[in-house]
C-alpha cells in the first residue's frame, strides 16, 4: 500500500482543529476569492465548470427548440396531401437541418454539456482538470452551431439528408454551399466534442475524491466513461469521411465518384461506423440520468450496480458492430449482413439488463412518483417500443421491406425520444434546483408530461402504419388516394400537441422566479454528492474534498453533510488563493497530486473565434483568409498554453489536510495532461484508421492494385522519409531522457536535430507521390495515397511545432529537468506519430509491392 493510500485508509474527518467558526469562515472566504465568478462583461471569460456547463446546456436546448420548429414545419407540410406549404427545395433543407441539428447540436453535445456541469460536483471535485478546454469547446460549439443553423435563412442549408450520402452531396448537390457548411461546420464541432470527451474521461479516471474506489463511483460516471470512450472511437471515422468528402467537393479528388475509381459506399461505411455508435452515445447518457433518478425515487441504492456497469460497457462495445444494418439494402453479401444482424440483436441483451435493473430497484423501494420519475417511466415505455421495432429492423429480410419508409422514421423517433428526450426532461426537472437553486413547478411538470406523452404517441405511432403502407421517408408531398392522408393528419395534429407540452416546460424554465423561495437543500433526498451543494450554490464546487466510504455518501456516511460544510476533509482552504483540486489514482482513488487549475480568461474564446474562422472561410473557398485565421488560432492556442499550462509551482509539495502532503506538480503518466494527450492521440489514430479503411476498401473494389495505369509512389522517397521520422522520434525521446538527467544542452541539441529531421521526413513523404506523377484528381487511388501522405506530413508539422515549443520552454526556463510536463507530452505525441508513419509506409509503400 502506498503512503497516500495508507493515510487515506486511516483518515477520519478533522476534529477539534476545525471547530473554530472564525477559522472556518476565513477558509471559506479564501476559497470564495479563489473561485470567484467574474462579473460584468468579464462574466463571459469564466471557465468554471458550473458556468460553462450551464451555458453549454442552455445553448444545446436552444438548438433543440430551433430544430423542433423545423420538425413542426415538416409536419405542417405533410398535414394534407399535395400540400404546397413548403417548396420541395426548402423541404429538403428543412428535414436535413432538422436531423442534423437534433443529432449534432443537441443530442450529443447535451450529454457533454450536462456532464461538464454535474460531473465534478458528483465526484466532489472542484472542477474538471482542463476547465479552459471546456470553455474552448463551448465557444467552438456556439460558433459552429450558429453557422450551421443560420444557413437556412440564406437558402443554403445542407439538403442531402442528415447522413449526407454522395452523390446527392457531390454531383447533384441542390444547394451550393450546404454540404460544405455541414462538413466543415460539423467537423469543427466534432473536434470540440472529442475535446470534451478527453476532459470527461480524465475527469472520471483521475479526479475522484480519495477513497472512491472503482466499485463506489456513481453510475453516471461509469456511463460518462463509456460514452466518452465511444465518442473517441466513433467520431474520428466520421472526421475521416468528412475530410474525404470535403476534399472531393473542394478539390475534385474522386473518392466517391465511380467514374474515376471511387465508390459512394465508402462514405456510407465511414458515416455509419460513426452513426450507429452515435445512437448509443445519445442513449446511454440519458439512461445514466435515469440511473441517478431511479434510486432517488425508490429511496434505496440501485439494484444490480455491477450489472448496470456490464450493460454500459457491453453496449458500448457491441454498438460498434451494428453499422452495416443501415446498409442492408446496398447489396453486400448475405454472410456479411448476417454478422451485423447478429450483433444488432445481441445488443438488445445489455440494453434489456439495464431496464430490468431499474424495474428491480423500483420494485424493491418505496417509489415517490415525482415529476422526474414520471418522465423516466414514460421514457421506459416509449423506449421499449422503439427497441422492439429495432429488433424487427435488425433482421435483414424485414428491413428490406421497411427500408427508407416511415416505419424507420417511427422507429428512430421512438428510440431517440424515448431513449433520450424523455429522460432528459426528467433530468431537467430533477437537476433544475441543482443548476439554478430554484425548483420547477410540480403542477406544470405533470401537465407537460401527459401532454407530451400523448402528443408523442399520436405523432409517431401512425408513422409505423404509414411506413408499412409504403410511404417513403423524405417525400415532400404525397397523393391523397394511397391511404396515407389520415395517418399523416393524425401525426401532424399530434406533433403540435407534443410541441405544446414542450412549450409548457419552456415556460416553466423561463418564468420569473424572483419571488419563489430557494429550494431546500437536497430537495429530492438523494444520496450522491452533487446534492451537497448549498442553495444558492457557491462557486467552489465543493467546500472540501471529502473521504468516500460508500456509493451513496449522503445516505450512508454519518454526519457527512456537516463534516463537508465544516471543512473537515481535504483542501478545506486556499492559502495561496489558487484554484485547486485533487488528482487520484484510477483504481482506488489514492491521492496523487494537488492540481492547480487555471481561472477565467478570454483566450479560449478568441482561440475559438479564429479556429471557427478557419473552418467558416474554407466553406466559401476563401482559402487565404482561412489560412490567416488558422495561423492566428494556432498563435492564440500557443499563447494560452504558454501562459496557462505546465506552470512551475511556488513550492513542490503542499499540505492538503488530514495529515496528507501532496506534490503540486506531476509529469509523464502522473500528470493529467499526459493522459489527455494519450486519449486524444488514440482518437487521432482512429481517424487515421478510417483513412486506412478507405485505402483497403479501394483495394477490395479494384481487381488490380494499384489500378492501372497508376504506379505505386516511389519507395525510395518513402523509405527516406520514414527513416528521418524514426530518427526524429528517437531524438525527441532522447531529449526527454537527457533533460530528466539534467543535461539541458544535450536536450536542446537533440530537439533542434529532431526538428530538422522531422521537416526533412515530412517533405520526403510528400515527394514520393509527387515524383511518381500521381495526380489526385485523376483517380481515387492516387487521391487516397495523397491523403495518407498529407495526413502524416501535417502531423509531422505539428510535431515539429511541439519540439520547438519545448525548445523555447527550455530556453525560457519554464521547462526544467524537474518540471518537464511538456517534453513528456511531446514525446508521447511522437510515439503516436511514429506508429502513424509506419502504418502509412506499410500501406502506401509496401502493400502495392505485395499485391
Amino acid at each position, binding site marked *: 500500500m502506498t503512503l497516500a493510500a495508507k493515510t487515506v485508509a486511516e483518515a477520519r474527518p478533522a476534529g477539534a482543529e476545525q471547530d473554530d467558526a472564525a477559522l472556518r469562515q476565513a477558509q471559506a472566504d479564501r476559497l470564495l476569492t479563489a473561485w470567484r465568478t467574474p462579473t460584468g462583461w468579464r462574466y463571459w471569460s469564466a471557465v468554471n465548470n458550473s458556468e460553462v456547463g450551464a451555458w453549454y446546456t442552455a445553448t444545446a436546448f436552444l438548438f433543440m427548440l430551433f430544430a423542433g420548429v423545423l420538425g413542426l414545419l415538416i409536419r405542417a407540410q405533410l398535414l394534407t396531401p399535395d400540400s404546397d406549404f413548403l417548396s420541395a427545395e426548402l423541404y429538403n433543407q428543412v428535414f436535413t437541418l432538422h436531423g442534423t441539428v437534433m443529432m449534432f447540436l443537441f443530442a450529443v453535445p447535451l450529454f457533454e454539456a450536462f456532464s461538464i456541469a454535474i460531473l465534478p460536483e458528483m465526484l466532489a471535485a472542484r472542477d474538471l482538470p482542463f476547465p479552459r478546454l471546456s470553455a474552448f469547446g463551448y465557444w467552438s460549439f456556439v460558433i459552429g452551431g450558429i453557422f450551421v443553423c443560420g444557413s437556412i435563412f440564406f437558402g443554403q442549408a445542407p439538403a442531402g439528408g442528415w447522413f449526407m450520402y454522395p452523390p446527392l452531396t457531390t454531383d447533384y448537390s441542390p444547394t451550393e454551399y450546404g454540404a460544405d457548411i455541414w462538413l466543415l461546420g460539423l467537423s469543427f464541432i466534432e473536434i470540440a466534442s472529442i475535446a470534451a470527451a478527453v476532459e470527461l474521461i480524465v475527469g472520471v479516471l483521475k479526479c475522484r475524491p480519495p477513497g472512491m474506489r472503482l466499485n463506489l463511483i456513481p453510475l453516471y460516471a461509469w456511463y460518462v466513461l463509456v460514452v466518452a470512450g465511444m465518442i473517441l472511437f466513433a467520431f474520428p471515422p466520421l472526421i475521416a469521411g468528412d475530410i474525404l468528402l470535403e476534399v472531393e467537393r473542394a478539390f475534385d479528388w474522386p473518392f466517391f465518384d465511380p467514374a474515376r475509381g471511387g465508390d459512394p459506399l465508402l462514405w456510407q461505411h465511414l458515416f455509419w461506423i460513426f452513426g450507429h455508435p452515435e445512437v448509443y452515445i445519445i442513449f446511454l447518457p440519458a439512461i445514466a440520468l435515469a440511473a441517478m433518478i431511479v434510486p432517488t425515487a425508490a429511496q434505496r441504492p440501485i439494484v444490480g*450496480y455491477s450489472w448496470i456497469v456490464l450493460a454500459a460497457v*457491453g453496449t458500448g*462495445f457491441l454498438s460498434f458492430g451494428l453499422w452495416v444494418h443501415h446498409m442492408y439494402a446496398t447489396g453486400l*453479401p448475405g454472410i456479411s449482413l448476417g454478422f451485423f444482424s447478429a450483433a444488432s440483436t*445481441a445488443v438488445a*441483451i445489455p440494453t434489456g439488463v439495464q431496464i430490468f435493473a431499474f424495474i428491480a430497484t423500483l420494485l424493491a423501494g418505496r417509489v415517490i412518483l415525482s415529476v422526474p420519475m414520471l418522465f423516466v417511466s414514460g421514457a421506459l415505455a416509449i423506449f421499449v417500443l422503439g427497441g422492439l421495432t429495432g429488433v424487427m429492423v435488425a433482421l435483414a429480410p424485414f428491413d428490406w421491406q421497411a427500408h427508407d419508409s416511415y416505419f424507420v422514421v417511427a422507429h428512430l423517433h421512438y428510440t431517440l425520444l424515448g431513449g433520450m428526450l424523455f429522460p432528459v426532461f426528467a433530468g431537467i426537472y430533477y437537476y433544475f434546483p441543482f443548476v439554478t437553486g430554484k425548483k420547477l413547478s410540480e403542477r406544470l411538470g405533470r401537465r407537460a408530461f401527459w401532454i407530451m406523452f400523448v402528443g408523442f404517441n399520436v405523432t409517431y405511432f401512425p408513422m409505423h402504419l404509414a411506413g408499412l403502407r409504403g410511404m417513403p421517408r423524405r417525400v415532400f408531398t404525397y397523393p391523397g388516394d394511397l391511404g396515407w392522408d389520415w395517418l399523416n393528419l393524425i401525426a401532424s395534429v399530434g406533433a403540435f400537441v407534443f410541441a405544446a407540452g414542450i412549450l409548457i416546460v419552456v415556460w416553466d424554465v423561463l418564468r420569473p422566479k424572483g419571488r419563489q423561495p430557494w429550494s431546500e437543500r437536497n430537495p429530492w433526498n438523494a444520496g450522491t454528492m452533487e446534492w451537497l451543494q448549498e442553495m444558492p450554490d457557491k462557486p467552489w464546487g465543493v467546500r472540501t474534498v471529502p473521504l468516500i466510504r460508500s456509493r451513496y455518501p449522503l445516505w450512508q456516511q454519518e454526519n457527512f453533510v456537516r463534516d463537508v460544510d465544516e471543512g473537515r476533509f481535504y483542501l478545506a482552504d486556499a492559502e495561496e488563493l489558487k484554484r485547486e483540486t485533487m488528482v487520484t489514482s484510477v*483504481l482506488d482513488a489514492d491521492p496523487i497530486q494537488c492540481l492547480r487549475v487555471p481561472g477565467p480568461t478570454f483566450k479560449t474564446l478568441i482561440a475559438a473565434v479564429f479556429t471557427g474562422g478557419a473552418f467558416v472561410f474554407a466553406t466559401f473557398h476563401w482559402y487565404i483568409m482561412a489560412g490567416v485565421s488558422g495561423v492566428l488560432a494556432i498563435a492564440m492556442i500557443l499563447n494560452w498554453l504558454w501562459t496557462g499550462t505546465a506552470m512551475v509551482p511556488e513550492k513542490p509539495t503542499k499540505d492538503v489536510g488530514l495529515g496528507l502532503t501532496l506534490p503540486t506538480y506531476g509529469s509523464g503518466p502522473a500528470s493529467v495532461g499526459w493522459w489527455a494527450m494519450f486519449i486524444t492521440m488514440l482518437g487521432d489514430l482512429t481517424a487515421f484508421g478510417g483513412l486506412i479503411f478507405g485505402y483497403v476498401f479501394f483495394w477490395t473494389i479494384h481487381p488490380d492494385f494499384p489500378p492501372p495505369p497508376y504506379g505505386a509512389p516511389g519507395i525510395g522517397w518513402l523509405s527516406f522519409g520514414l527513416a528521418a521520422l524514426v530518427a526524429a522520434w528517437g531524438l525527441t525521446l532522447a531529449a526527454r531522457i537527457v533533460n530528466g538527467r539534467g543535461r539541458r544542452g544535450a536536450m536542446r541539441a537533440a530537439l533542434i536535430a529532431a526538428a530538422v529531421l522531422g521537416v526533412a521526413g515530412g517533405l520526403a513523404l510528400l515527394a514520393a507521390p509527387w515524383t511518381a506523377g500521381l495526380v489526385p484528381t485523376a483517380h481515387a487511388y492516387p487521391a487516397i495515397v495523397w491523403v495518407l501522405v498529407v495526413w502524416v506530413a501535417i502531423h509531422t508539422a505539428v510535431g515539429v511545432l511541439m519540439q520547438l515549443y519545448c525548445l523555447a520552454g527550455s530556453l525560457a526556463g519554464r521547462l526544467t529537468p524537474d518540471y518537464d510536463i511538456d517534453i513528456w507530452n511531446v514525446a508521447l505525441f511522437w510515439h503516436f506519430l511514429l506508429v502513424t508513419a509506419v502504418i502509412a509506409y506499410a500501406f502506401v509503400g509496401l502493400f502495392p509491392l505485395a499485391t
Partner: protein
Amino acid sequence: MRETLNDAFDAERPREQSVWGLVISPTVWAAHFLFSYGTAAVYCSKVGGDALPVRIAVAAYTGAALIAIGLTGLRAYRTWGGPEARIPPLSRHTLEDRRRFIGFAGLLLSTISFIATLYDALPALIFETCR
C-alpha cells in the same frame, strides 16, 4: 526532487489488477467480429462464389475467441470468488470489494461477449455462398 516524491507517493503501486482487465473479453469479441467481417468482405469481393473458406475461417476465429473469452471469464470468476464468497452489491470501501467487483463485472462482460461471439458465428453456419 523527483526521487523524494517517488519514494513518498509512487513507491510500491500494487500491480495485481488493472481496469483494462474489464475490456479484454469485449475486445476479443470486437476482434472476432472484425476478422469475420473482413474475411467475408475481402473474400467475397476478390474471389466470390462458394463461401466455404470464409466459413472455415470464421469457425477457427470463433474457436480461438471463445477459448480466450472463456479463460478471461474463468480468471474473472476466480477474482470474484464465486457466489458463496460474497454476493453483490460489493459496495464496501475495501480493497477486497473493489477487486471482487472488477472480477464480477469482468465475468459478466465475458458472458455477454461469449454470447455475442456465438451470435456472430451463426451466419457462417447458415450462409453457404457469397450471394
